[in-house]
Structure formats: structure tokens, C-alpha cells
């Protein structure tokens, strides 16, 4: 009897572990050193600029995210400063409603490339844990730097240092 109880307890614990672990089977988060997932496989809305041989800053943002709004002027400035020198900035919007994105962009215009991850496929592949999260990719498409959130001038200074480093190495 004792043996049976032990066994059923093990079965229950096993089932519980399986069920609670299910979300853990999702894609592993993208980290520094990984190759960034393909844009073309994620059915993004909007057109992408030519990325061949370019240093790419991929920024995941949403209209409801306050730090995203604060980061846009800095991204616009970086685009103006390094756009001709080989940097491409791609803002990937993850809003569920297109109208939310449009409303945000009316108040906070962006001069860099924007695409919309309407099906949230690309963002799910990267498994970001905060909004905004940005990935700085080298000319080969490898993630070289990762930024969680946006901390104002501190993050902007880091962007500048890292972009210059990657542009030099190109």
C-alpha cells in the first residue's frame, strides 16, 4: 500500500512538472554571439532596407511602452549620424493593433526603418524579457550587443560606442 502511494505520488509530481514546464519548451532567448533569426521567415509588415554588409540595430518596441517612446529621439539621431556610414536601424513594432502603432508614430515620428511583427513571431523567437530590447548585429548578422530597456543618455552613449566599434570592424 505504501509502495502504491509512493508511485502515484511520483506520477502526479511527474505530470505536474510536465505541465508547468510546457512554456519552457519555447525557443531559447537570443543572446550575444547568436545569429539573429531571419526577418523573411517572420512575415513582417512593411519593407526592410538592404542589410547586406550593414551594421544593424534591431529595436523591439510597443506603443504602450514608455521607455520606447523616450528611446525614439536617440534612435533618430543615431540614424542621422550613422545612416550613411553603414548603420541600419530597424524598429520592430509588436503592437497587437495597427492603430496603436499609427497613433504612437504620429506623436513620436521615426526617421529609421519600421516594420510590424503583427503575428509576434520574430519577437517570440528572440524571447525578449523587457520592452524595449534592442540587438546590435555586426555585418555578418551575429548579435554583438544586447540592450534591455532604455536608460536614457547612458544607453545612448553605449549605442554610440558600440556602433562605432562595429562600423570600424566592418
Amino acid at each position, binding site marked *: 500500500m505504501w509502495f502504491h502511494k509512493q508511485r502515484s505520488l511520483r506520477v502526479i509530481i511527474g505530470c505536474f512538472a510536465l505541465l508547468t514546464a510546457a*512554456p519552457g519548451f519555447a525557443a531559447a532567448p537570443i543572446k550575444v554571439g547568436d545569429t539573429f533569426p531571419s526577418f523573411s521567415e517572420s512575415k513582417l509588415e512593411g519593407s526592410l532596407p538592404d542589410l547586406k554588409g550593414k551594421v544593424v540595430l534591431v529595436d523591439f518596441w510597443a*506603443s*504602450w*511602452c*514608455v*521607455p520606447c517612446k523616450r528611446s525614439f529621439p536617440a534612435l533618430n539621431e543615431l540614424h542621422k549620424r550613422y545612416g550613411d556610414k553603414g548603420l541600419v536601424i530597424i524598429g520592430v513594432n509588436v503592437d*497587437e493593433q495597427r492603430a496603436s502603432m499609427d497613433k504612437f508614430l504620429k506623436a513620436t515620428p521615426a526617421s529609421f526603418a519600421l516594420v510590424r511583427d503583427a503575428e509576434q513571431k520574430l519577437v517570440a523567437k528572440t524571447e*525578449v524579457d523587457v*520592452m524595449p530590447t534592442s540587438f546590435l548585429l555586426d555585418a555578418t548578422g551575429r548579435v554583438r550587443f544586447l540592450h534591455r530597456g532604455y536608460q536614457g543618455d547612458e544607453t545612448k552613449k553605449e549605442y554610440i560606442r558600440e556602433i562605432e566599434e562595429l562600423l570600424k570592424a566592418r
Partner: protein
Amino acid sequence: MRTKLFWSLAGGALLLVTGCENVKPWQRGTLADESMTDERNRANIALNEHVFFSREAATGGRGVAGGGCGCN
């Protein structure tokens, strides 16, 4: 009888577990919506915050970034 009760409870608990869903950081648009806050009157929020800060020497956590919207 006891075994049956045990299994029914265990089965029920397992069914409840499957109802859990993780909201990913990029899916928090609805949660971050203003309609999800318990107080939508900004003047009231400011007054309450002032009183709370005076009494508790602490502030924040009411709809600003970091208050659960997944921003930073």
C-alpha cells in the same frame, strides 16, 4: 473511497494547472492599458500619492514604468 477522492482531487488540480498562462513581455499591451488601472483620475492619483508618500516615505507603483507593464 479514499483513493477515489485522492485521484479526483489530483485530477482537478492538474486541470487547474493547465489554465495557467504566461503573459509574455510583448503581450502586455492590454495589461498596460489605462483602463486596467484602479484609479483613472490623475488629480486623485497625485493627491493619493502625496498622502501616501507623506505617511509611508515611499512612492510609485501606480501605472508608471516598472509597475508591471513590462517596461524595464
